[in-house]
């Protein structure tokens, strides 16, 4: 009897082929993500301002110390946290509402589903420009807001002065609204897929058990969507912290520093102040924050996964 032992050569080729197939992707990602992120860290430990190219030298964590001591950083971080938190919350609520709608059967559902992708297809910059128009002096939404404020003033006998995008409060929340509007479709697609994966017997069983429609949502739909909600939360948290193109087009960071989200602040450090060392330290802090949040979410995912078996 001949025993066919896989030879060393054979077992190597078995592993070699899949690695070979992954090679192009790995090379690209190593060259344009892993390598830059390494360089970025190295640069963040240097004094490196393009205005003083003669004075590039290592100075350890000093950039980080400077940043952590600056009020600009804390302001940007606070704005980004508020921006991201509101965005994640609103995206989940609105996307869930539309996904639940699309799960119902009614005439014209196909049309609604086709329209769903409109906000997603619009580039962030153009989205920003669009909202500049909508909320600008002649914008249709601006008119509505002005009328609303006037009505509120009249009804309650108060005097709120509405200054449009010149108001920090309006500008920041308008940016959030525009960001949410564009993010809803992607989240909605994920929710819809998750809802459609719920076995209909579950609802029938709950009906037989006498659950109201709210209870069916609360005790069947929501638990089944836990995983999808976390996935969306991860995606949207990352997107919230990296929001840049919208800010660039819609507010340019203003008025004042009202919409200086952290990505914008980083961009300014790098390309307005030309402080590459400081900007890299900034970007490292952003990466750290998003990674930490991602790890928390993923841990939640896995803990839930274990419970559900």
């Amino acid at each position, binding site marked *: 009897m*001949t025993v*066919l032992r896989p030879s060393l050569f054979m077992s190597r080729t078995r592993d070699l082929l899949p690695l070979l197939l992954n090679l192009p992707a790995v090379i690209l990602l190593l060259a344009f993500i892993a390598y830059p992120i390494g360089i970025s860290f190295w640069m963040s430990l240097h004094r490196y301002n393009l205005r003083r190219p003669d004075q590039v030298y290592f100075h350890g964590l000093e950039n980080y110390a400077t940043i952590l001591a600056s009020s600009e950083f804390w302001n940007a971080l606070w704005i980004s946290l508020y921006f991201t938190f509101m965005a994640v919350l609103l995206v989940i609520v609105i996307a869930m509402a539309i996904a639940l709608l699309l799960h119902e059967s009614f005439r014209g559902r196909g049309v609604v589903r086709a329209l769903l992708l409109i906000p997603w297809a619009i580039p962030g910059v153009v989205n920003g420009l669009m909202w500049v128009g909508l909320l600008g002096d002649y914008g249709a939404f601006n008119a509505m807001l002005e009328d609303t404020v006037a009505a509120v003033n009249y009804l309650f006998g108060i005097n709120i002065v509405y200054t449009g995008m010149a108001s920090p409060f309006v500008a920041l929340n308008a940016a959030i609204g525009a960001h949410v509007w564009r993010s809803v479709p992607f989240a909605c697609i994920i929710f819809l897929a998750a809802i459609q994966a719920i076995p209909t017997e579950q609802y029938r069983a709950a009906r037989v058990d006498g659950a109201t429609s709210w209870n069916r949502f609360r005790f069947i739909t929501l638990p089944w969507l836990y995983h999808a909600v976390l996935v969306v939360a991860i995606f949207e948290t990352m997107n919230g912290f990296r929001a840049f193109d919208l800010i660039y087009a819609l507010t340019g960071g203003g008025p004042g520093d009202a919409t200086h989200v952290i990505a914008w602040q980083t961009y300014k450090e790098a390309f307005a102040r030309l402080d590459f060392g400081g900007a890299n330290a900034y970007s490292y802090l952003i990466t750290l924050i998003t990674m930490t949040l991602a790890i928390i979410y993923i841990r939640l995912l896995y803990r839930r996964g274990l419970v559900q078996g």
Partner: protein
Amino acid sequence: MARVRLKNLTKHFGDVVAVDNVTLDIADREFLTLLGPSGCGKTTLLNMIAGLESPTAGEVWFDDRNVTAVPPERRDIAMVFQTYALYPHMSVFDNVAFGLKMRGVPAEDRKRLVLAASKTMEIEHLLDRKPRALSGGQRQRVALARAIVRDPGVFLLDEPLSNLDAQLRVVMRTELKRLHGELEMTFVYVTHDQAESLILADRIVVMQDGQIQQIGTPESIYDCPANTFVAGFVGSPPINLLRGTLEQSAEGAWRVVGEGYACGVPVSMIERMKPPEGREVFLGVRAEDIGIGEATSSIEPDAAAGNFDPTGVRAKVVVREPMGSDLYLTVDVGGTNVKVRTRPENLLDRGDNVGLYFDPGKIHLFNGESGESLISES
């Protein structure tokens, strides 16, 4: 046309031994079924014959050719998959013709052969359709046509009927038997359905845990199961197995005595019996080999030992299951449930006490520990 020989075939998946040292000789044009519960290694064995899995050890021979290292596309085989695996992007015609095309058969010949195979499988009217527009039975026919069109030496079938509903399964079973009669091919057929196996096969290979339990004709598997596993797996309802002790009376007659029953063992069987290692045995008796006596008032053992009926079984009816042509009774014999087949006219019902007798010529005796049959095949 091909004879298939497997020599000490073994397959490991990590630490799991899927197929354990299987040696098997499949004759040319034989219809052989690999029968066993899911996870017994029968599909892995089939995949190794096809060349879709490479064995950890051992060899596969087609006639005088060692094909162990030959990839599937260069073995002379055709295969039908459990899920049919029809190519969803091709029409039925292209599905059937694909194998011919890959082997460089010219277009006119392809057309002729596809039409012939479609005729055999009665799917000529479906040739322009896509697989998703077909019913389950039609898909099955296309999968068969795709396999027979190339006139392969070996025809491998992996649970081809298990995705069909019960009625269609019976139709396709007959169809397969007809095909085997018409085509001169070796059929290797994997199934977990013992009835399919008994009906179709020239020979059955019963497998469990990667090992062959028994090889034989349907009759020999059914009548002389090699162990309690084979006895329990082949036949419906499963054979009744009762614990008992083998004993010899003062007159020299042998019988098996257990909780609630006693049954004589004929001399012819004693003569063929391997020397019993212990007295503990399993008595196997099929539902159709049990006779029903008079209903009795009590199942209390007869106090007078002298009156003891050597083949008496005291039972109490637990469930009555009419099946049209037959009636199955589940009865309690000394704490063990026993299935009995009888005429539907029988009026016995739940709670009735009844005397049974096991047909001594049809009983099976197995070693009480290992479960191996005590009777060597005659």
